[in-house]
């Protein structure tokens, strides 16, 4: 019985407004990160799939560097490293660092998702578009993009969910998102069980809701014959 009795539900209830403040910052950064990585993914994924000379090479380097280094080191590099460049220091405010870091990370994973998606579009579809007199760009926008983006959707959903989860690491640079709010609440109240239970439950709710929503979109957009 001590298990239930010692758990202070009232404490969680009392501090919902605090969590709400952190939650708003988390959702804001996650939304920018997801939107940004979608945009980067489509543009650089298209450049990769169409082997556009210089851009394709640079995009490949960007993807490999980001995917093979820890995002936490990337965050510190942007927050602490860039301010110390000899000669040309770059100083950014915490919010800019926050969305920039998760967007750059998500964009790299999404470039790879969309590259694979665009490359999976059968060549004959594009050939048909070109034969109808569409320019290469018009063929991409009207043929490759609508089909390839749908092929890429399942794998990019994982990236979007990871972008949301990665925002928790921004507490490391003191950006006041959900995890940071919980961390300071714990250090003021000394109620770690309550704080981290509430934090974990909130993240699971967020992650499960986001993936359920995205799967709904996936079902709605699925290519008819694969439905």
């Amino acid at each position: 019985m001590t298990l239930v009795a010692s758990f202070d539900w009232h404490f969680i209830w009392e501090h919902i407004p605090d969590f709400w403040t952190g939650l708003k910052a988390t959702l804001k950064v996650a939304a920018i990160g997801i939107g940004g990585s979608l945009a980067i993914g489509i543009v650089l994924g298209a450049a990769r799939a169409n082997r556009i000379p210089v851009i394709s090479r640079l995009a490949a380097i960007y993807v490999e560097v980001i995917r093979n280094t820890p995002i936490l080191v990337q965050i510190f590099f942007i927050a602490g490293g860039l301010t110390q460049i000899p000669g040309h220091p770059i100083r950014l405010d915490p919010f800019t660092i926050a969305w920039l870091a998760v967007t750059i990370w998500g964009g790299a994973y999404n470039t790879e998702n969309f590259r694979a998606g665009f490359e999976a579009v059968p060549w004959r579809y594009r050939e048909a578009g070109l034969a109808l007199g569409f320019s290469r760009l018009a063929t991409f926008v009207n043929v490759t993009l609508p089909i390839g983006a749908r092929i890429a959707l399942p794998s990019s959903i994982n990236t979007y969910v990871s972008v949301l989860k990665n925002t928790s690491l921004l507490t490391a640079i003191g950006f006041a998102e959900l995890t940071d709010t919980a961390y300071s609440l714990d250090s003021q109240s000394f109620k770690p069980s309550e704080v981290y239970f509430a934090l974990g439950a909130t993240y699971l709710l967020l992650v499960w809701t986001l993936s359920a929503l995205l799967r709904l979109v996936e079902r709605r957009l699925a290519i008819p014959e694969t439905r």
Partner: protein
Amino acid sequence: MPEWVDPVAHYMIHEGLPTTLRLAAYAVVGSTLIGVLLGTLLTIRFWPLQALIRLYVEVWRGLPILITIFSVDFALPTAPLIHHRFGAIQGAAIGLILWGSAQVAEATRGAVQSIPKEQHEAAAALGFGWIGRHRSVILPQALRRLLPPLVSLLANIIQNTTIASLIGVTELLATGQRSIERLQLTPPGDSHAFAIYAGLLVAFFCISFPLTRLAIFLERRLV
């Protein structure tokens, strides 16, 4: 080479790197053992067991690793019945194993289910029980399919060990940050943060890139 580089590099390579590799080794071994066991059990058609393992997988895959590690390190010691404070490395390893084993369980389920039904039947006909059948016939074949995701997992775990620096483990990232702080406090007070963080990115890239290439190579060869 500037004068400050030598002591910093020495500290990071002899103090930070071994801790990173040790933590990664604990995490990858623990994740593989628990994950393979849970993933194999997940193929048994008995719904209470399936529901339980599913819950385990969905919870630890759904939570950000940082939250899992914070919970193990800060909240678990105050929980009733446990009252045990783990060391920072142990806490980080447990957190990474909870996440990693969930990943491995999911991959193992797929790999075991990809083995044709006839293999189960043939093994059963030879008189193997459930355990013997899986240990001697099914899992050795499933391992081929499991190897590429396990190599990717190793690369991911090495990257995620940096999260342990946030609960005070002196792994590679933490030794870099301590060096930055120390350089800042000693005259002439230049932290060299740009060079040190860039060096960390290069170091992790050199460890991780060959592993992700190996995973792609194995994927092409084995599957």
